[in-house]
């Protein structure tokens, strides 16, 4: 459904002597099969939006090949557009327009008759809990309602491929879950392919069949979330000390016994990987005890995607989203 090879995008910024290129995408190979739901993850500025805009024919890539829905975005953009639904990161409706009109007009631009567009729009409004907002100007909606409206307008023409750029930003937990249901339902009932960017790891974890992590314009990981977590090798150990001021000494001690650095925090907790075959918890406890370091909490857990992300990009996704 999507196939890119060595996709590159470089923007010109500044003028004259201050002119310099920004390499937003540096050689991305992305494959998405029909009916797949793929999550695209990455910190701010990683190149997610740029990639989606290229796939949606809004931007012409600097180099590389891009095939979407079986057509080249450069030579057959209209064929691509017909089959694709795009939810932009920044919104797509006019504040003055009425919700129902925006959705209907959008559908008509894809060749639907007014009646067909209205019917489908009504149906989507019901599914996305927008039922009674048909007559309202979009400027009067709450942020989350508006986001759902924008998603509805992008789906009126029943696209084969839906590309969503941070669709759940600003949605409350219930609306988020509702949207996930709807996205899964699109796949079940219409075989729709979905590419979605998000900053929420639980969302990527729960919704996607596969995750692609990008950083600085390149793919740094590609696989199911289980596979990515398994790659982390081992568990995550968190030690909470009784006396936070001892954190530095504890870090040295852990390094001596486990062979790698632990990052201490001000509140006296230390977190780091606990590799299989390192002697396990018993060694850690014994070693801490031997140095008279009182421990009030000890936690071993399976890695989350957040850990995966931290390991791959050196940044926590929460920091990235801030």
């Amino acid at each position, binding site marked *: 459904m999507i196939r890119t090879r060595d996709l590159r995008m470089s*923007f010109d910024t500044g003028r004259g002597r201050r002119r310099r290129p920004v390499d937003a995408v540096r050689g991305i190979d992305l494959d998405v099969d029909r009916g797949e739901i793929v999550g695209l993850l990455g910190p701010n500025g990683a190149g997610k939006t740029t990639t989606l*805009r290229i796939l*949606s*024919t*809004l*931007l*012409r890539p600097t180099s590389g090949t891009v095939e979407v829905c079986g057509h080249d975005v450069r030579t057959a953009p*209209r064929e691509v*557009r*017909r089959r*694709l639904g*795009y939810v*932009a990161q*920044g*919104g*797509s*409706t*006019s*504040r*003055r*327009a*009425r919700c129902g*009109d925006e959705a209907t*007009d*959008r559908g*008509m*631009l*894809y*060749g639907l008759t007014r009646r067909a567009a209205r019917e489908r729009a009504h149906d989507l409004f019901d599914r996305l809990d927008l039922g009674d907002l048909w007559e309202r*100007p979009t400027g009067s909606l709450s942020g989350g309602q508006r986001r759902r409206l924008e998603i509805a*307008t*992008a789906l009126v023409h029943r696209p084969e491929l839906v590309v969503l750029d941070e669709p759940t930003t600003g949605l409350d937990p219930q609306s988020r879950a509702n949207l996930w249901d709807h996205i899964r339902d699109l796949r079940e009932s219409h075989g729709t392919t979905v590419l979605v960017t998000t900053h929420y790891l639980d969302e990527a974890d729960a919704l996607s069949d596969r995750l692609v992590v990008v950083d600085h314009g390149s793919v740094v990981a590609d696989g199911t979330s289980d596979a990515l977590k398994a790659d982390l090798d081992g568990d995550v150990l968190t030690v909470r000390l009784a006396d936070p001021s001892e954190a530095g000494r504890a870090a040295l001690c852990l390094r001596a016994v486990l062979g790698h650095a632990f990052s201490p925090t001000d509140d006296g907790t230390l977190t780091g990987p606990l590799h299989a075959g390192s002697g396990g918890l018993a060694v850690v406890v014994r070693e801490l005890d031997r140095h008279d370091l009182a421990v009030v909490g000890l936690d071993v857990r399976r890695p989350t995607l957040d850990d995966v992300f931290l390991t791959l990009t050196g940044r926590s996704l929460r920091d990235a989203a801030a």
Partner: protein
Amino acid sequence: MQLLRDATVVFRRQVRLNLRNPAWVLLGVAQPILYLVLFAPLLGPIATQIGVENAYTFFVPGLVVQMGLFGALYVGFGLLAEWREGVLEAERVSPASRGALLLGRLGRDVLQLGIQCLVLVGAGYAFGMDAPWSGALAGVGLALLLGAAGSALSNAVALRTRSEEIMAPLVNVVTMPVLLLSGILLPMTLGPGWLRSVSDVMPVRYVVDAVRSAFAGDLAVPAVGIGLAVTGTLLVLGLTAGVLAFRREDT
């Protein structure tokens, strides 16, 4: 034909949006009347001096061109607002032809300017303008073609600059000389030779002359042909620039 169908969808959306803002619609109609009421009386006393019998027959055509062109030059600001809201991008990911996105908006502008011009001409008749209907309609038609050219150009500039701050002075730089040097307010024949020579290179002057001839009932004079040719050229230039701007990949 897909172009027309898509353009109609865009056009209806735009007209609907304008109608949802009644204050704005009222202002659009009131503006030409204000011009007529507040400016034309100044012309009355000097009508004979500038060699015209009826000040309104002289002045209404100039106003028609001014409204047609100047109203159109500002539409780019509306397009920038749509761009900021992401509407333009949403339309550009649809398979609608890029030309339709422009044409639908031009249709809205021409409709609106047309209504304003008709109100103005109607008021002109009420004040005692002396012009044949057919000539007045032909004159309005020509002004609307000029308006379409201006609107296409304004859209093109808006998409190129993507900035209200750059666009505002640019529009001013164009409108000031056009207003002063095209004989819109007073006939250029009043001025000294050098001023007349400068006005000879103002394309809009020929459109003003043609519209004035039309209002005077002289449709078969060279001035009308020249005005039509100038307007046609401006329209082709404007449309080309506009379509190219809509086609260009976004940044």
